[in-house]
């Protein structure tokens, strides 16, 4: 009989709930759970944490997640893989070790390091922009917050070989987190592109947690049951590469042809060439079959050789956003909000505020679809909110926007109310993607083991 491994997703982003992971540990019969904490920008948040306190720089949800889940996972022999390490995988591992002591469980933690390259960026210059080909300008480098390479699954396989119960990484390609336990368990060779493609499609389908089990579903979304207790996805994978997508039993949500095809194409750009460090996926011949309730088989995935170089992402400080939001009721709600916009524009000009961009949106009317919103509704709005946002190079200028909005509650058009969004000044982050040679990165990858 062909051996089968069940891999689940425990988290889809920094901020996701970990209660479904707990349900999965109790009822999902899984062998591995992978936790994906790092969106494109999460490292910028973690850099600020680390600047304040050098022992931080990993995602803070790791500790409560382990406190809630680890004892039962450990008792059942479920191994956990997490990229919560962020900019400080070692710090995350130390924190995890403290949790193991607190819970009184035996634990072996393997840490993957080597993705962070900001401190050694000289080796990778000119760091050409991946799309424009432009070399990294010095003034952007000086404002850099982080620079990390998207590693593949191989270092995680090495980490699993140490017998670790918990693997902690920094930046790795999201799908590689899930490919790794499959490659490790089945001994799949990394030059078998077909098997790499299958493991990677599993990772791609699972990495956004509930987005494949009926969450954020664009189709008949109101028919998806019990989103208040939505189950997270599980892949049942056989040694021969058969893949079935399902979810924790007795939970909300749904796994169907519609939910799986929707996540399959999510953010992939060219479906014939979805690029990861392990393999380039061709999804264009995919077959999805509903085998039963909440069980969808995935086949027809093709693998091509991975790119010669790794993708790296540098994030840099790129100014500030200041904004203020204020609402107006019927009658003439939109007309009044537009009058306030005009007042604010005049104030910005009179104060000679050095704003680089002004963006005006009317929440409840056109804030999402802009010029494509239906203008027939403009005259009949029950209420509308003005959102007045600016881009600036300094924080002080950005903060002036909400200050100049406050007096307009009494001194502007009538029925102003519900003012929200004051003090929402936000630092903006520019991103600079580049391709880097694998050699110097691979030479610096280290797997370290901590035990209690």
């Amino acid at each position, binding site marked *: 009989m062909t051996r089968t491994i069940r891999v689940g997703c425990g988290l889809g982003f920094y901020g996701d709930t970990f209660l479904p992971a707990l349900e999965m540990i109790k009822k999902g019969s899984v062998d591995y759970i992978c936790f994906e904490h790092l969106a494109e920008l999460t490292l910028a948040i973690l850099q600020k944490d680390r600047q304040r306190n050098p022992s931080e720089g990993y995602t803070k949800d790791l500790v409560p997640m382990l406190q809630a889940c680890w004892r039962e996972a450990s008792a059942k022999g479920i191994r956990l893989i997490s990229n919560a390490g962020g900019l400080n995988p070692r710090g995350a591992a130390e924190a995890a070790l403290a949790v193991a002591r607190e819970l009184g469980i035996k634990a072996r933690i393997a840490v993957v390091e080597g993705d962070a390259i900001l401190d050694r960026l000289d080796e990778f210059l000119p760091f050409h922009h991946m799309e424009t080909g432009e070399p990294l300008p010095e003034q952007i480098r000086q404002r850099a917050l982080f620079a990390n390479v998207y590693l593949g699954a191989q270092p995680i396989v090495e980490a699993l070989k140490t017998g670790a119960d918990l693997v902690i990484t920094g930046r790795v390609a999201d799908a590689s987190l899930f490919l790794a336990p499959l490659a490790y368990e089945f001994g799949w060779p990394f030059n078998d592109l077909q098997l790499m493609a299958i493991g990677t499609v599993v990772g791609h389908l699972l990495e956004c947690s509930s987005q494949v089990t009926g969450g954020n*579903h664009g189709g008949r979304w109101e028919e998806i049951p019990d989103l208040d207790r939505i189950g997270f996805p599980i892949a049942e994978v056989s040694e021969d590469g058969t893949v079935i997508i399902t979810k924790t039993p007795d939970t909300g949500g749904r796994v169907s042809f519609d939910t799986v095809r929707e996540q399959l194409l999510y953010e992939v750009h060219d479906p014939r060439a979805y690029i990861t460090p392990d393999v380039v996926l061709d999804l*264009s011949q995919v077959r999805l079959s509903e085998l039963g309730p909440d069980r969808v088989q995935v086949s*027809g995935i093709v693998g091509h050789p991975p790119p010669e170089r790794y993708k790296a992402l540098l994030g840099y400080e790129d100014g500030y956003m200041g904004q203020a939001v204020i609402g107006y009721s019927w009658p003439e709600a939109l007309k009044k909000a537009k009058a306030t916009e005009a007042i604010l524009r005049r104030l910005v000009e009179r104060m000679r505020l050095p704003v680089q961009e002004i963006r005006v949106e009317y929440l409840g009317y056109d804030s999402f679809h802009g010029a494509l919103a239906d203008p027939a509704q403009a005259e009949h709005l029950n209420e509308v909110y003005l959102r007045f946002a600016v881009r600036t190079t300094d924080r002080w200028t950005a903060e002036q926007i909400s200050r100049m909005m406050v007096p307009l509650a009494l001194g502007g058009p009538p029925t102003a109310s519900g003012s929200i969004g004051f003090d929402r000044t936000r630092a903006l982050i520019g*991103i600079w993607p580049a391709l880097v040679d694998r050699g110097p990165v691979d030479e610096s990858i280290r797997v370290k083991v901590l035990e209690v």
Partner: protein
Amino acid sequence: MKLKDLAFSRSSDKGDHVDISLFAYTEEGYRLIEREVTAERVAAYFAPLGIGAVERFEVPSIWALKFVIRNALDGGASRSIRADNQGKTWSGALLRIEIQTHSSERSED
């Protein structure tokens, strides 16, 4: 009819680009959207929002089209000052498109 009656959609960002998937509810619906929702049409439709080039990809085995709309997010979600800085609602905007059907196609519905 509106595209919303034939298909559903999900969109998001990758760097400065908006990535929209469009899924027909039926095989007949896929043939219609494949014919009607061209890259040129989508480019013209979103032009008022300030966008770069539009590319279309087809995945007929799951009745799906993919649109990549380049340079649409002011340099990317993290430096955009839009309310929808990740392009999550562009899927809904796309579904407003009017689809022309021939009389024979209507009688099938």
